């Protein structure tokens, strides 16, 4: 396995469409009238960037042995429906101990003017 701490992936643009927000709200039992559910960040922040990590051959993250152990979202401001947001993912740390690999994957999401919206921090544990 390759440790890829510090690696940053190219920024990803995502438009927050009303239909996608409503489907997400329905799926978690939230009232779509309340606007964007906070954890829609799983889509516009983590969701758009984490495939870059999983698809990175050098990072060699074995999807079948992967466990999502912790998740945090921090918001400066919640995005609005119709807004286009920009997310950049990076490997904040990548360590191994006792046969387990721990990858901290952070994503910073900004609005179109580069003002911060959300930071996602995911901890993945990969069994060897």
């Amino acid at each position, binding site marked *: 396995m390759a440790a890829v701490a510090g690696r940053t992936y190219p920024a990803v643009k995502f438009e927050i469409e009303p239909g996608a927000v409503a489907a997400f709200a329905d799926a978690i039992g939230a009232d779509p009238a309340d606007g964007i559910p*906070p954890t829609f960040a799983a889509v516009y922040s983590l969701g758009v960037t984490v495939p870059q990590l999983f698809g990175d051959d050098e990072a060699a993250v074995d999807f079948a042995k992967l466990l999502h152990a912790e998740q945090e979202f921090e918001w400066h401001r919640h995005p609005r429906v119709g807004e286009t947001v920009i997310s950049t993912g990076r490997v904040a740390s990548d360590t191994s101990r006792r046969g387990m690999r721990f990858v901290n994957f952070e994503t910073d999401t900004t609005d179109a003017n580069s003002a911060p919206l959300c930071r996602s921090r995911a901890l993945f544990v990969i069994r060897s």
Partner: protein
Amino acid sequence: MSERKVTFTREQIAAYAEASGDRNPIHLDDDFARSVGLPGLIAHGMLQMGIAATVAAEAAGGPDRLRRVFVRFAGMVVPGDTVTFRAEPAGEGKLELSAVNQKGESVLTKAIAESQP
């Protein structure tokens, strides 16, 4: 305190897979899930977190008021499990979150939310 009791179904897990774009077969296909050592298909941790954050948003006075949510995924949730999600005030702008299944086991631990004062 805000509370919500949810009995997870395959339909809800499949709907979350579609809505979130996380179509990992461990959430959709029993045979695949068993092949990687799981008891069968399991709910997304992020679905659990989504419900916990919805309950937290209710306690905080609206989703826009949430500033931070953290969870540790401590236990699997399978179809048929009933999980009670709670958000309780824990000091200025802080909410303690919990998610406990029908056996009394916590499926989320260290779960907290912070809201705009």
